[in-house]
């Protein structure tokens, strides 16, 4: 153990291009994708056979057989088989939280280097049997004699054979995430035009990033895909304006364009102490300064489902003596354009900032030209647990590229949670 926390370097990242659901990666499992992303990282930083402190990752949609998904991926990768690993899950906050956990261990001196990330597939989704059939199968399994084992099947009815796919709704409200955000966005007066504008910029920025080769050392092609499949460089405000609302009813403002699509993909980030990096001849892109996680009570209608980052950020700012304006780049995960805009509006609102955040006044607005400058989830897609890794690697590189600076990350998650972090270079 060293005395006091150490600086934690973000050394680099690797991900596979994100694919649209049921498309290029339809046959790839979570383990396939994460192993591919991990091996890409190993290749990029020369980590073959290396024993790292740990690998932490997770998936939101996971088969029960994948209970040790990350460890199995490590065993299938070119890292040393002696590298320990574990899974976590915090919905869309999984990736960033995994990075936070590895960073914390490095800061404390418990480990010197590690990999964190996440993976998700909405194509190769786990499908469970219905509750009635599950009970029948369990009863049959408990039977001792053949007769006991067969008897429960007499209860079997045709409707029991319908599968129970993963639900895209909050268990406690029965509302999908999009419907929740439609309410929040409507309350904050988020217009269709503003959402489409944000979406358009996300596509433009990501396309430009690919054009100038920004992603060349962040993304490794996989299964014939070289760029994120959802990216539409040729989209326009006119095209986006034509889309029909998918959430919030007929008069809704949220469309398939300004909401992230279901997607498949995996992302990884390499973290290490400065000593470890220099010992391995690696140059840190940025440093992981701090992180904060918040949760809100969306069940009783007091707060919007995806508003937790609005609470997490000011707490983290206060701890670090920073203002919202003290950043050179902002990465606000675009789960929905409406979520990003609601969060920004809340920070500009005196009533929200004083009564809900307990501040003396509004946090204020940010320079929109510093927001998601290399594109974000609306363009890239959003394989839930993979998003944190994509954002951290991309922001670290962007900060490094501009020769230093400070970046803010904000990621909303199901269950009324949010994970945010600060990077510095």
């Amino acid at each position: 153990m060293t005395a006091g926390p150490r600086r934690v370097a973000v050394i680099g990242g690797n991900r596979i291009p994100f694919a649209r659901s049921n498309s290029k990666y339809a046959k790839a499992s979570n383990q396939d994708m994460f192993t591919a992303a991990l091996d890409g990282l190993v290749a990029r930083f020369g980590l073959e056979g290396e024993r790292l402190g740990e690998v932490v990752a997770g998936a939101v949609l996971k088969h029960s057989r994948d209970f040790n998904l990350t460890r199995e991926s490590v065993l299938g990768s070119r890292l040393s088989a002696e590298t320990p690993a574990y899974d976590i899950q915090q919905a869309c906050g999984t990736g960033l939280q995994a990075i936070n956990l590895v960073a914390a261990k490095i800061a404390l001196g418990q480990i010197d280097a590690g990999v964190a990330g996440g993976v998700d597939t909405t194509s190769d989704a786990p499908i469970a049997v219905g509750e009635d059939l599950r009970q029948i199968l369990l009863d049959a399994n408990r039977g001792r004699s053949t007769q006991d084992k067969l008897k429960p099947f007499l209860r079997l009815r045709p409707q029991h054979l319908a599968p129970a796919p993963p639900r895209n709704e909050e268990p406690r409200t029965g509302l999908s995430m999009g419907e929740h955000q439609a309410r929040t966005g409507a309350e904050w007066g988020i217009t269709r035009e503003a959402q489409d504008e944000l979406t358009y910029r996300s596509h433009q920025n990501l396309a430009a990033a690919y054009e100038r080769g920004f992603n060349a050392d962040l993304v490794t092609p996989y299964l014939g895909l070289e760029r994120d499949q959802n990216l539409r460089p040729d989209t326009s405000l006119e095209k986006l304006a034509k889309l029909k609302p998918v959430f919030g009813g007929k008069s809704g403002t949220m469309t398939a364009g300004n909401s992230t699509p279901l997607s498949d993909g995996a992302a990884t980030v390499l973290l290490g102490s400065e000593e470890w990096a220099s010992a391995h001849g690696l140059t840190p892109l940025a440093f992981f300064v701090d992180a904060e996680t918040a949760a809100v009570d969306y069940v009783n209608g007091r707060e919007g489902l995806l508003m937790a980052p609005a609470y997490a950020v000011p707490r983290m700012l206060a701890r670090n003596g920073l203002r919202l304006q003290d950043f050179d780049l902002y990465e606000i995960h675009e789960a929905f354009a409406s979520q990003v805009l609601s969060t920004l509006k809340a920070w500009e609102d005196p009533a929200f900032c004083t009564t809900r955040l307990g501040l003396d006044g509004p946090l204020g607005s940010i320079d929109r030209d510093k927001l998601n400058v290399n594109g974000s989830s609306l363009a890239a897609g959003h394989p839930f647990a993979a998003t944190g890794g994509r954002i951290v690697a991309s922001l670290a590189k962007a900060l490094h590229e501009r020769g230093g600076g400070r970046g803010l990350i904000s990621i909303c998650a199901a269950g009324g949670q949010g994970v945010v972090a600060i990077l510095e270079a």
Partner: protein
Amino acid sequence: MAQADRYTELINTPIGKLVQKQVGLPAPVPLKRFSPGDAVADGRVLLGGAPGGRLARPLAKLVAEIGAEASTPLREDLRAAAAEAGLDAGPWTPAAAASQRYGAVVFDATGITEPAQLEELHAFFGPTIRRVKRCGRLVVLGTTPEAASTPSEQIAQRALEGFTRAAAKELKAGATGQLVYVAPGAEDQLASTLRFLLSSKSAYVDGQVIRVSAAGIVPTIDWSQPLAGKVALVTGASRGIGAAIAATLARDGAHVVGLDVPALEGDLKAVTGAIGGSALTADITADDAPSTIAAYLKREHGGVDVVVHNAGITRDKTLGRMDEARWNSVIQVNLGALQRITDALIAGRRRAVLNENGRIVCVSSIAGIAGNFGQTNYATSKAGVIGVVDAYAPLLARQKATINAVAPGFIETQMTAKIPFATREAGRRMNSLSQGGLPVDVAEAIAYFASPASTGVTGNTVRVCGQSLLGA
């Protein structure tokens, strides 16, 4: 009393609802009434306003005080007012209305200075009026027209009355709508009025206009016991509305002196005994009654804080057939005695029996506003009561006292139970709430006027009539 209204019970059964919809019958809902411990507002309060209004701050402060959930439109002045008041107000835009129901929708219209700006009412209430909950509240606040600074402002503010009364008629399911005219400088006088109008205490008050004027400092009170330590005289306290008034004032902490004629002493003592009050018997029309009452109050309680002139009689006959006795007795009891007792209690200015910050509340009647067949005597007396309020309000203001009246419409009492069925049903249903009120509804309005916090509330006659079509 409510039992007598079988129709309301029937119409709220599943079969009743079916029949009501098919035939298009009136659909009264059981009104929510106040019980101690209830929150002031039953549900989220949506707070809006026309730009340039002067009431956003006091409104936000009040909503914060009553601990209601709140929302406001995302306009800078409203958000800043909420922030300043520590009001945890959710954001609201017209697009957001669909998913939310409101216990109360409150609008500060004082920023409207010319008729064209009345559009603000349409813009705010258009998307929200159908989001008002069952037994919810709609409240518009304006500037007292006579106190407006320009003719255009006066006209626009006067127009609010038509809007509010019409909106009140469009509200459904026991919801009510009111207008409060706030004089310039009376921004600090709003709490008692808004608490009353937002709460279920105003269940049967609908389509009314209340004027709040600038006055002295509003005392800080315990809102669950606003009349703690106060002495209240209630005339005609032995039954019906009077008994309900006595009980309600006692609930609010007052020591009630109930007064009635010697013949009803038994009933009177039953009422006052149950609430720990005292009973005083007198014929209020007797020449010495005013001085006897004044002396009693001075001797036993050192004065009186609240006087409720509730005693009243009817002696109905069409005018051509009405004898002198019927005419005179009604005028004497309902109006003459009322004025003479008031005079006796306020005589002597500083040494008056009515204590400083005293409250006088008269019971008028809808008949005094609209007139009523066979009640020329009664209507005369009850219109005269409104005259007493008008005439005495300025006098009493000098001794920091207030005077107001309630004008009950159809209230379910033993008296109204005797009205023939067809007439009774007409009386009950011909109002925006399609039902009769209860004695407690009148009593709650009186308790509001009687509150020590109603410093700026004087000279009002508020109808407790469910927005009756009569005299509207």
